[in-house]
């Protein structure tokens, strides 16, 4: 019992329950105006409270769907739909996941590559860093459609444009983290290498790289979440090609609020799962590298 209270299960459960309670309250508040106008059109007066609640929680196009509505939609589109058809959220999650994965791998490699350049070349350090920061202030999300079109015109279609938007968003945390990581060895550790007359390569592989591993994982966690956002945004313009992004958007065209929320839930679950997976690899690596349990 004490263990339970000290772990994070109980606190998380309590917080989640609180959120659900607030959510239900919000459902009532936000959906009441529409419900009243429905009653007014039907000339209904003095609707009993239970009937009112039942109606508010079962609207076709709620401003805010009730948690159970989202849960049912989520369940149906995950478990009751053939995962190889566009009716299934699994189908869309898979499309988004592949773009996320590809973009994330590109982004991580690009980030590490740039960090290596920055750490080893002063000119790169000075000239690149301010522009890398500035690059992230470009609202890439806003011009994602244009990027997709332009890439299409040079023959890049399908997964690649989405993955490149993911790359753009995910390389930044990796560069910043890895520059820090590659520079994290203390002066004395570098001096030690110098006394051995170690080559640049040896210093990198035997010192800088292992020292940077914790930073790598931390920034990869941030990066993978950014990748997912990038992939989803990249799917918006290519609305009909599937993926959670197109699902979100289609939901909004056809007024399917509940479907939007289910897709949102799936997106958040996906990113939580990805972050968790990286965390698992991180602790495995840490164990192999001798970190205290």
């Amino acid at each position: 019992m004490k263990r339970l209270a000290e772990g994070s299960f109980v606190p998380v459960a309590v917080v989640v329950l609180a959120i659900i309670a607030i959510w239900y309250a919000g459902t009532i508040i936000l959906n009441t105006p529409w419900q009243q106008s429905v009653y007014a059109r039907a000339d209904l007066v003095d609707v009993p409270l239970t009937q009112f609640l039942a109606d508010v929680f079962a609207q076709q196009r709620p401003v805010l769907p009730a948690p159970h509505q989202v849960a049912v939609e989520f369940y149906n589109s995950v478990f009751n739909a053939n995962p190889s058809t566009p009716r299934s959220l699994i189908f869309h999650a898979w499309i988004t996941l592949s773009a996320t994965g590809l973009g994330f791998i590109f982004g991580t490699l690009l980030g590490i590559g740039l960090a290596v350049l920055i750490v080893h070349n002063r000119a790169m350090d000075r000239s690149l860093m301010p522009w890398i920061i500035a690059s992230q202030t470009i609202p890439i999300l806003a011009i994602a459609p244009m990027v997709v079109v332009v890439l299409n015109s040079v023959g890049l279609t399908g997964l690649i444009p989405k993955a490149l938007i993911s790359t753009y968003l995910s390389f930044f945390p990796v560069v910043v983290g890895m520059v820090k990581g590659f520079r994290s060895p203390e002066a004395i550790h570098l001096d030690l290498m110098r006394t051995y007359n170690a080559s640049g390569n040896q210093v990198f592989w035997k010192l800088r790289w292992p020292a940077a591993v914790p930073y790598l994982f931390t920034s990869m966690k941030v990066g993978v979440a950014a990748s997912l956002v990038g992939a989803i945004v990249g799917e918006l313009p290519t609305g009909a090609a599937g993926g959670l992004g197109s699902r979100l958007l289609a939901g909004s065209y056809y007024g399917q609020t509940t479907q939007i929320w289910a897709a949102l839930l799936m997106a958040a679950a996906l990113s939580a799962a990805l972050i968790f997976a990286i965390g698992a690899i991180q602790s495995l690596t840490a164990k192999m590298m001798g970190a205290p349990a």
Partner: protein
Amino acid sequence: QDLYPLTFQLKWVNQGQFAGYLVAKDLGYYEEAGLDVTINPGGPDIAPEQVIAGGGADVITTWMAAGLAARERGVPLVNIAQPFATTALEMVCSEESGVETTADFPGKTLGVWFFGNEYPFYAWMAQLGLSTDGGDDGVEVLRQAFSADPLLQNQADCISVMRYNEYKQVLDAGIPEDSLTLFNFADEGVGMLEDGLYVMEDRLEDPEFVEAMAAFVEASMAGWEYAEANPEEAAEIVLNNDMSGALTLESQIYQVNEAAALVGDTPALDVEAYEQTVATLLSAVSPDNPAITAEPEGAYTTVVTDAIE
């Protein structure tokens, strides 16, 4: 024998609006015509004019106003056929707004679609002499997302709808038809031709391409004919092509029916309607609405439709 490859860029996601093309592809009409057609769906932020300029498509559908605007910006688009002979853009106002006639517009908030869809609206306001910067003697313009929500949530007094899509959504939400006020852009004298087929001008110098286009247009019209006759089956086909899984059969049957009704007897461009569109656009030139500033030259051709006859 070898099929002639064609890439066709839609303006919007696969839906009943494009049923004719999807049916033609699905039933093999294009193949029979010697064509290998790839249909690329569009989306809210895909500008087909940009896609074709970048070489990403051989032929696109877009609205005439947007096509002419692109031509003036240096993308030499040419209309080769006009399957939609009539227009479906409307503005619908809620009961609460109190709008009954255009005289009630001042002081109201109107939802407008941008991204090349705004030209008819600005032409209309210019004709009514209303400013679009808000205030009591003008209207306030809201950039409407591509949905009917602003009306349902009372954020706008009137919104833009396509007769075949959002209008149905408004009705489906439970709002009675007789409580709504509907303005049809064509009836207001600012109708502009909608879905037409456009290609890059230089491609038309190639007779083989013209021939392929003729085959394409002909097969597409056959697709439309089939869709009109078999709306359920056409809606099924649309649904099979929907990658979002968000469409419902019911809404698509409705949409196919409505869209097929827009298709004229002939794909040939009605020159009178073209000139009307141009005249309306030129009558409303303003910094907000720089669709075109001069009479376009060579913006349409009949070589393709002539080749069909």
